[in-house]
């Protein structure tokens, strides 16, 4: 066991490791005339379906000064349409369905999980709110308070999350990944009905949407139902191109500290700016995935062995590669020091491990173990239709294809020790990183 990580501001994103990728039948991908994409992931073990619609816009597409609008609109999407003036949550519940939605940097997704006979009804509901949303100030204003309470709950009461916001903002001084998904408080306070509707008009179109259905269904039936529901929505112009300012090559390591009287357990994080599956050269993202696992994937990883077991500088350590990302992304190392260990000592020890990694050959057994576990994740994923639906949705919404997903295990298997080491040399460069120190108030002088 290890104490859980201080994840970066990803509380609104699905916690999907970039991996794992095959259902229990052939997975199909098609497109309706109005541009809506359809992916069907059969899993005939239980008569249940997961129905999701992914819009290819997330918080990183919020207009300047309107941070949080993607997420605010996600909340407002539950409020009602002409056909369902009070929303359809009651109707989903009456059918025994579970529903929710989430906003991430690159996408916004809505889902229901229901018995398979109710799939057509869910598609009708979701198609209806792609164009029929009705908002009044009576509805918008209390919901904005709800979002502000959400921000208070997640961030304003938690120093670790506040540090994460500052670390991300430092890693992305130019690209909108530096702004939290939920938005900055002072901008959320100003969002109103017309901001929401303008954003809705711009992004909620069939050609910007990906329908994912996983579960006890077949592709032809889903496509037929999709034509009867989503297919009736007229095509709009091409989906808006996502224009985001890209980061320049970083040249300076940055250290961000946050001290707070509420902190009793210090923590360390270091986040590197690295390519994503979408932006990387062929094989490079897979090398980063294997490298991340070698470094911080559980009790047999290099960092755990060195910092936790051998040197006893950390009680917990881990690594995470946010590979499923439209633009250049984060490779993230976190650690919690043992009592009596300073964050500076921990930081130096981390550098020693990285230096060793780029200078010495990677152990073949370690490499094989990392690859084995990653590839096994793809098999474990097949047990969970909802997780599979999320992986496909997140991948497609960030520009990958179902072929990429199918080929992922062999691409991971193909990563050599040299590839992983090369990735470490190139990307684990401290000049590409922001280090975050979470400190008790007394220590921060």
């Amino acid at each position: 066991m290890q104490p859980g990580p201080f994840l970066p501001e990803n509380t609104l994103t699905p916690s999907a490791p970039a991996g794992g990728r095959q259902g229990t039948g052939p997975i199909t991908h098609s497109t309706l005339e109005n541009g809506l994409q359809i992916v069907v992931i059969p899993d005939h073990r239980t008569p249940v379906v997961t129905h999701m619609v992914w819009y290819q816009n997330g918080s990183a597409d919020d207009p300047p000064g309107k941070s949080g609008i993607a997420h605010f609109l996600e909340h407002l999407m539950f409020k009602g349409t002409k056909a369902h003036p009070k929303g359809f949550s009651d109707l989903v519940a009456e059918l025994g369905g579970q529903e929710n939605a989430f906003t991430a940097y690159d996408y916004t997704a809505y889902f229901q999980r229901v018995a398979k006979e109710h799939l057509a009804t869910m598609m009708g509901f979701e198609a209806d709110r792609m164009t029929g949303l009705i908002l009044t100030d009576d509805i918008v204003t209390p919901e904005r308070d709800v979002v502000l309470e959400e921000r208070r709950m997640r961030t304003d009461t938690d120093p670790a999350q506040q540090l994460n916001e500052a670390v991300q903002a430092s890693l992305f001084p130019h690209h909108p990944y530096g702004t939290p998904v939920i938005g900055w408080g002072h901008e959320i306070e100003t969002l109103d009905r017309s901001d929401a509707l303008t954003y809705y008009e711009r992004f909620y179109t069939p050609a910007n949407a990906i329908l994912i259905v996983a579960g006890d269904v077949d592709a032809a039936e889903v496509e037929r139902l999709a034509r009867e529901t989503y297919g009736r929505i007229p095509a709009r112009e091409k989906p808006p191109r996502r224009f985001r300012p890209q980061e320049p090559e970083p040249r300076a390591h940055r250290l961000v500290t946050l001290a707070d009287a509420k902190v009793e357990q210090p923590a360390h994080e270091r986040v590197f700016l690295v390519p994503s599956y979408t932006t990387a050269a062929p094989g490079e993202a897979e090398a980063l995935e294997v490298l991340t696992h070698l470094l911080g994937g559980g009790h047999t990883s290099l960092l755990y062995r060195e910092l936790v077991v051998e040197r006893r500088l950390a009680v917990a350590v881990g690594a995470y590669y946010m590979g499923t990302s439209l633009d250049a992304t984060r490779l993230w190392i976190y650690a919690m020091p043992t009592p009596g260990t300073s964050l500076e000592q921990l930081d130096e020890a981390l550098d020693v491990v990285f230096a060793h990694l780029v200078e010495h050959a990677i152990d073949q057994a370690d490499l094989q173990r990392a690859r084995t576990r990653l590839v096994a994740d793809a098999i474990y994923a097949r047990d969970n239709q909802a997780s599979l639906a999320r992986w496909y949705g997140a991948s497609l919404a960030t520009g990958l294809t179902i072929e990429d997903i199918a080929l992922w295990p062999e691409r991971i298997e193909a990563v050599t020790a040299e590839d992983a080491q090369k990735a470490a040399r190139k990307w684990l460069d401290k000049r590409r990183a922001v280090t975050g120190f979470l400190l008790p108030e007394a220590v921060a002088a």
Partner: protein
Amino acid sequence: MRAFAEAALSSRAGRVQRVFSPGGIEAWLVEEHTVPLVALEFSINGGASQDAPSRPGTATLLAGLLDEGAGPHDAEAFHRALDDKAIHLSFSADRDHISGHLQTLERNTEAAFDLLRLALNEGRFDPKPTERVREQMVATLKRDLNDPEAMANRAFRAAAFPDHPYGRAVRGELATLPSITRADLDDLRKRAFARATLKIAAVGAIDAATLARLLDEVFGAWPELPELVTVPATSVANLGTRRVIELDVPQTTIRFGRPGIHRRDPEFIPAMVVNYILGGGGLTTRLFHEVREKRGLAYSVYSQIQSFERAAMLAGSTSTKNERAAESLAVIESEIKLLASQGPSEAELDKAKKYLTGSYALSFDTSTKIAAQLVHLQQQGFDLSYLDERNKLVEAVTLAEAKRVGERLFGDGALLVTAVGRPAGM
């Protein structure tokens, strides 16, 4: 699993085999070969309620050490053996149980069960990993020391169950974690690891004969009877009191509760239905509507019925900015009293029953979820037939029954409340 979730068409229970090993160990099995995976869940009685009063956290430490070296393998070698084959093995402790969770690729089933056997029979508890896991527990406690939700829960637990094992910290206390000894761990293992309270479920690509053989290998050496300390029945104390814990944050985290109706109580099903209407049902409950939708007071607000072995609780939580926290609590209290005095409407009851019956299948769509459900049913003493009866019981709840059980559940509406933050006027 196909028919498994299809209660209307065939028997869900009919897909579960009761497997008895040659040595007399029982497991519930759903054999399913579509995906080449095997999941095993099990539990035994003997969680934190067995910790010595001066050494809370013993069961959690024990559970945390079971995969930290066993038999010929030290901690590193044991983890390597798991990771080399991508075997997922973990253990956990709650108030009443110690549980194990195993998931493996079908091709590694034998190796996975062998590592489980070692963990459960030949755990080494070597000094180094013991200190490491203890330090990890300490770090987690420190991290939660000023976390509003953790603080509200701690205060609630202590006030609800004073002088009872349920009032103690499952994950231990900073002051006393260092005093837990190797002898404490050995003692708990010896007292709790026994076959009489063992509940097991397996799901996936494994047949009954193979499972039966492996069960004997893993659990066969355990004694029949545990030697557990009796935990007295208890109920939520300090009703009608509020405890405000000062913390410099802009939002107040509120936890509230009162005695519940136990899972084994004949009136549990109507109680579950009534709680669904109050705050158990996600986006459609009275609390969600009144606190969140209408007034924008909180992002999250809910209530739930919790059943421990020896207590039941209606408990809930919300978080509102300090200026309006008192208003949130007032709305919650008033909704509870309203539901207690008037009962639900026919339409609410109907909707609740439709959701609770319709969504039952969603609890059975992955191997690990099915296995967890099957262990839970065994812990509560239900037969396999419950899998098919459960929805009928929900459907049979009448309005009069819902009203009566609501009165019993909510009583006079008196709550124990803990609040963390700087709530105005509370």
